[in-house]
């Protein structure tokens, strides 16, 4: 039946997914720094500790490497940990357990085990938190076979992808852009899944394909709206999953539009844009291209503190508009 339309913030949607997963399966538990009475640095876990108790909403000491390893071990032995990094930057402290252990154990053990682990990473810049609290490291983890990496851009997908991640028998890394936490959108109340590995076309158009991730999806949609006023019809694809990559959706779109722009917040070189571009160059869509592929990514530097520099360090809506316009105006 048609449910009442209900809006939640992105953070509330994540929280609802966590609560529903814990209600449905008592093996599911949460680990992280200050996720208990504090409610999480971004108030994602909120009051969950009062509903589920300290045994299922566990505050860890400040010990990312060790705590990540504890989560891996618990997953290996039949529990379903959902681990929150306070900031995605602190994944760097836990890389050993994520990359050497979680990602590889199943393979190294000949497929005898799986590691049903979910890790959540508040990511991205725009909060004035400077170089060590603003990074976009999703491409790092997406480089590692054995991990799945998702990047929900809307409250709807934040809930659905997280529930899918918790169901998944393999380690799933969920990147949540900090600037999205307070954004609102429609979220069905009942539990539902958004499939891992499926991109979505957020706006259709024939002139150019914009492939975007996370907050860049919203900037790309804004840009597309402006460009429509100039007679440029941009198709916007929200990638949603970095690994496994939904090649088909991007290939089909590029075959239709003949132009490709990739927009992502991570550092431009050796990142998501490189992968998408190369994937297209290797595919049947290559023959359809009418113009060089354009990548818009973060600048080649750490994220600066000064707000003007910080903004200039990652793609903004006017940058997308300008690049798409240039690309399309050059059409023959």
């Amino acid at each position, binding site marked *: 039946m048609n449910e009442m339309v209900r809006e939640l913030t992105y953070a509330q949607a994540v929280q609802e997914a966590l609560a529903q997963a814990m209600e449905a399966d008592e093996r599911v538990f949460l680990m992280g720094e*200050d996720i208990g009475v*504090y409610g999480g640095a971004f108030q994602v876990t909120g009051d969950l500790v009062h509903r589920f108790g300290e045994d299922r909403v566990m505050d860890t000491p*400040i010990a990312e490497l060790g705590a990540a390893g504890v989560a891996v071990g618990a997953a290996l032995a039949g529990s379903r940990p959902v681990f929150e990094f306070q900031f995605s930057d602190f994944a760097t*402290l836990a890389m050993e357990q994520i990359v050497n252990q979680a990602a590889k154990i199943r393979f190294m053990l000949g497929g005898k085990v799986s590691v049903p682990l979910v890790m959540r990473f508040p990511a991205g810049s725009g909060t*004035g938190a*400077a170089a*060590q*609290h603003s990074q976009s490291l999703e491409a790092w983890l997406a480089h590692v076979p054995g991990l799945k990496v998702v990047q929900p851009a809307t409250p709807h997908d934040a809930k659905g992808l997280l529930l899918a991640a918790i169901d998944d028998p393999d380690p799933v890394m969920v990147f949540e852009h900090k600037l999205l936490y307070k954004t609102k959108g429609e979220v069905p109340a009942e539990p539902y899944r958004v499939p891992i590995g499926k991109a979505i076309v957020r706006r259709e158009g024939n002139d150019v394909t914009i492939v975007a991730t996370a907050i860049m999806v919203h900037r790309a949609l804004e840009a597309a709206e402006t460009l429509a006023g100039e007679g440029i019809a941009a198709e916007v694809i929200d990638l949603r999953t970095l690994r496994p990559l939904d090649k088909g959706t991007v290939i089909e779109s590029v075959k239709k539009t003949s132009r490709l722009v990739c927009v992502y917040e991570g550092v431009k070189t050796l990142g998501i844009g490189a992968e998408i571009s190369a994937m297209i160059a290797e595919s049947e869509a290559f023959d359809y291209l009418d113009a060089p592929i354009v990548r818009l990514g973060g600048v080649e530097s750490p994220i*600066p503190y000064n707000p*003007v520099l910080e903004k200039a360090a990652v793609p903004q809506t006017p940058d997308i508009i300008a690049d798409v316009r240039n690309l399309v105006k050059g059409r023959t």
Partner: protein
Amino acid sequence: MADTLDRSAAPAANLRPFYQRFSAAELKEALRRMYLIRRFEEGAEDAYTRGLIHGTMHLSIGQEASAVGSCMDLRKSDYITSTHRGHGHCIAKGADPKLMFAEFFGKEEGYCRGRGGSMHIADVEGGNLGANGIVAGGIPIAVGAALAIKQQKRDDVALCFFGDGASNEGAFHEALNMAAIWKLPVIFVCENNKYGMSVSTERSMAVAHVADRAASYNMPGQVVDGNRIEDVSEAVMAATARARRGEGPSLIECKTYRIRGHSKSDRNRYRTREEIEEWQARDPIGHFETELVAHGLLRDGEIAAIRAAAEGEIAEAIEFARNGTDPDPREGTRDVYTTLGAA
């Protein structure tokens, strides 16, 4: 400044080392720095509330004695490494509040040219290798600085500030072990303010004191009242002397308390108002004033004068910072490398 006050009231031999080691002028300078830290942070808080600066900040109000007490016996050529809660350490080591505020405001004149902000203020010339956004990130770095000191046969030391929460990171344990096996001139100063963000030490540590952990690394570990500057300073004096003699590292745990929330967004759900008030009553600045007056080193009127001077200095610093130069966005990628080879 000459020591003009009559110190004969107490025979020198009966004075504790803190009052023997430092002149009246030095002690007053220590008090001034404590005020300066307090006013700096109140000014920062105010500027933040008024929307003049963005990002986040971690205030150390209530912890001034451990910062200043730890740095009193240091030379300019000694190093410190600091934390996310680092404004006090920076001022204690002798930084200029003007350049600190300029950093806060993201200006070119700031210590880090507006690139770092509150969490990354450093004063390398003054021996402060920097605050740190990563909990425990500075601990191995202090050990590395001490290694360089030893390699260069200097008799300087590296003093490493960190929190109780940081002592649960692997980096802490790995670093202390290396400092001990290589007998490096490091003083590890833990500012134990009872919480790592919202998690109390009771909930995050299996031992009662961070200092207990020194035993694992065969170095002295001492607990001091971190709100009493004289206790902090004397412990650091002994540790620095030991380090300069080449006898290796020490761990000092200053029991203290942060009066403000962890950061701007803290709702204090994990502690009680009574606890905060109890610690407010043990204000390290008030304590030091009383001590100095009791020792005949400070007259009541002088307290007001030192306070007013600190207030004036901070007001000037804020004014200086507000009038600073904004960075040029085209320079965004400058200083990523010292030199970048052929591109």
